[in-house]
């Protein structure tokens, strides 16, 4: 389709829209109020909910840290605490920057660059989160058992069904991680291509 043809269609559509003007003052004010209300419902994306869950679990570990009586468990606890606090905080900061683009004074190109960079950063963080959560599988069963039931995990005393369940979770995680990593990589690549174009 040639540009001229697109322009002709666009003009025809614009004329139709001019005829269809339906907004009233009342509807316009209602829209601003609706959106104002929505600004307060911050729990509307998965990242925010995820971060809150992470902070709650981190709080639980911190309160029960005294139960961790071996060096292995203490190190596991510190690693998990770091994972549950640092990554979600970085994600929330990135989201905050995305939500607070300077739409009034900055140009479209500048905002698009900021947005794409932050989006890329967010995707990288999510990729890291997938990798770290996979690593945490190694010690989280022992940590959870100690914190929730005050018991020490001894592999040789595990029942066959427990071992099967653990293997199943690990295999599932491998597939989910590979799928997640590939999907994120695809989106990150397209963000990189756009950034190159914008900064050219």
């Amino acid at each position, binding site marked *: *389709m040639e540009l001229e043809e697109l322009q002709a269609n666009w003009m*025809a559509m614009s004329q139709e829209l*001019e005829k269809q003007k339906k907004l009233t*003052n009342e509807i*316009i004010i209602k*829209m601003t109020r609706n959106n104002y209300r929505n600004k307060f419902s911050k729990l509307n994306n998965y990242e925010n909910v995820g971060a809150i869950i992470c902070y709650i679990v981190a709080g639980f570990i911190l309160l029960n840290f005294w139960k961790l009586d071996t060096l292995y468990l203490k190190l596991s606890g510190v690693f998990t605490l770091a994972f549950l606090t640092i990554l979600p905080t970085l994600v929330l900061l990135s989201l905050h920057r995305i939500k607070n683009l300077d739409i009034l004074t900055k140009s479209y190109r500048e905002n*698009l660059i900021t*947005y794409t960079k932050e989006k890329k950063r967010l995707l990288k963080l999510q990729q890291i989160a997938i990798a770290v959560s996979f690593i945490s599988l190694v010690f989280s069963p022992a940590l959870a058992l100690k914190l929730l039931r005050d018991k020490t995990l001894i592999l040789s005393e595990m029942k066959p069904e427990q071992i099967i369940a653990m293997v199943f979770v690990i295999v599932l995680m491998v597939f989910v991680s590979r799928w997640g990593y590939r999907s994120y990589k695809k989106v990150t690549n397209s963000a990189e291509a756009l950034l190159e174009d*914008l900064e050219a």
Partner: protein
Amino acid sequence: MGNSDAFAEVIREHQGLLYKVSAIYTNNEQDREDLFQEIVYQLWKYFDSFRNESKISTWMYRVAMNTAITHLKKSKRIPKSEPIKESLVSMAEGTDDLFQERVRLLHRQIEKMNSLEKGIMLLLLEGKSYQEIGEITGLNTSNVGTRISRIKEKLRKNMVKT
């Protein structure tokens, strides 16, 4: 109250512009409605900051297109806005089949573009000069020209494919 009336008047006068920005950056009706309402809200938020240094439509394009950036690729998310059915009509509502087919064709071509190209394309279709496109997008005039040539080339290639 006077300010609300002035704002509502500006929105009513330029609602076509808002429909078109919303349509170009979204792929479905719910997203279009969300984006439209978000743009109206952002314009309302910054309405007092408008200083008549540029045309009101130029200012509105800038705010609307900048708002659209954060709505990119959100087609699968949960709707944020309350539907205001009486206001947000389909772009091709009440028109004949040929017209609707043309709008779909137009949308299919625009869907293939990246965000920057979409923005430039929108302004170009709106009949804006290279200078105005530069003012809104932040590109210099010669860069706008180069990018428009690239968009034309892409369109030609797409035409050969289809």
